[in-house]
């Protein structure tokens, strides 16, 4: 990754360590999880708690579905020139009982994906300029 400074494209949404994870939240009353994280007001209508704690979400899950972006998305997407198509995955986290969307790592296309396969969270550049690489979470087949 050279000498560029690496920063989070969405600060506070995920960690950038060796085993990156999404930062979500969990209601201390009903145990419902949230991503992106919430600091107050559990959305479970049967709960109504205002106390949520930040938690690391599971780093692996099962592929719920997948697709790709064959055409360059509009802004605020910052596309490399030339645009490189990328795959998109929705991954079901078993423990949290929720599905989380994200890009698939570069170099993996839909032909290498199938429903139910295990996917792992990593961080990769979303866009870059001369000095910095802005990282985002992506899903990678295990």
């Amino acid at each position, binding site marked *: 990754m050279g000498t560029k400074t690496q920063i989070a*494209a*969405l600060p506070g949404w995920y960690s950038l360590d060796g085993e990156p994870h999404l930062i979500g939240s969990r*209601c201390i009353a*009903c*145990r*419902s*999880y*949230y*991503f*992106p994280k919430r600091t107050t007001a559990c*959305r*479970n*209508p*049967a*709960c109504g708690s205002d106390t949520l704690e930040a938690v690391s979400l599971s780093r692996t899950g099962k592929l*719920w*579905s*997948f*697709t*790709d*972006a*064959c*055409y360059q*998305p*509009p*802004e*605020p*997407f*910052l*596309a490399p020139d030339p645009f490189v198509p*990328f795959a*998109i995955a*929705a991954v079901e986290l078993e423990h*949290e*009982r*929720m*599905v*989380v*969307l*994200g*890009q698939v790592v570069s170099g993996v296309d*839909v032909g290498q994906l*199938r*429903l*139910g396969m295990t996917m792992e969270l990593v961080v990769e550049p*979303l866009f870059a300029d001369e000095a910095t690489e802005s990282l*985002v979470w992506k899903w990678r087949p295990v």
Partner: protein
Amino acid sequence: MSAREIAILGVGMHPWGKWGRNFVEYGLVAARAALADAGIDWRKIQFVSGAATIRCGYPGYVAGATFAQALGWQGAQVNTSYAACASGSQALAAARSKILSGECEVALVIGADTTPKGFLAPQKGERPDDPDWVRFRLGITNPAYFGLYARRRMGLYGDTQEDFARVKVKNADHGFSNPNARYRKRFSMEDVAASAMVANPLRLMDICATSDGAAALIVSSLDFARRHGRGDAVRIAAISTVTPTFASEVLEMPDLATDSAVAAAAHRFRAALPRKAYEEAGIGPEDVHVAEVYDLSTALELDWYEDLQFCARGDAAGLLRAGVTRLGGRLPVNASGGLACFGEAVPAQALAQVCELAWQLRGTAGARQVEGAKVGITANQGLFGHGSSVIVKK
């Protein structure tokens, strides 16, 4: 039930297309067509219920007043609704509430839009606390969600890309003779297969375009209809605009994640919309003769068959292959040609669905007429927990 019904006295549309003119022009054409169809003088309209457009500046945010002014201020009550793709239905629901509460007897409901080229995109600015902005930052457009739903059907139920193409071919056949449709061209399975991949497994011809267009309704109390010699007018028997119920089972636009189903059962939003409409009208799916559903993608039309309870979950492609949902079949879906032939004009689209049902139930739909149609249902869904289902009956 009839105490909660209202009459549709008039319907009108401006043809869908990419005309590039101001949305108010389209709305005027649709409103005047609906007024003429109803035989009601504009000055008799007591309430103008507009569906907002968010891409046409301030006049779009206050669409009800914009159209009222364009038609000539005449002192009517006014309201504007915004509910993404369900804006038209919410405007219709506002009119029904006024009518049923006795605050007015006759209303104009109207939506019109002028759309930009290409992908629908969020408004400018940096808004990392707006999920709609974040998903676009990640490059996740509307077709990506449609692609996810389509792929899941293939994985769970064995649907194929040919099944999705069949939906396009069917709807193109239906819309071929519809003077209000933007695309009036028949397509073959090969044409669909040859179109460019957009969001695998969906190709360009599986995904609806965005269009300019306008639709308008004149609705009234049943008493008003009878007094004006229109006691036989088709009626609106139900308008469902319910929200989702926590926890979400399906990843919905523009969310990056579903709700967690740790503490609450997962619910399917799309299925909740017609369920409430059936309950309100006191009928069931077996009573429906014709349906207009939101085919943002070909595969999504198949999801709707199941959410409307036309068949068991996973059986929609079978219904399609058997010809049940094409004109001449037992339960034609998107006789108008659907979004496949129209493209989406957001604030007008839910009203266009009701216009089509009105023509079908009156028996004036011409070459696309569903013989003997007496009960019709619409289904639509947009962003941020908005959607609608309207039941029209003879």
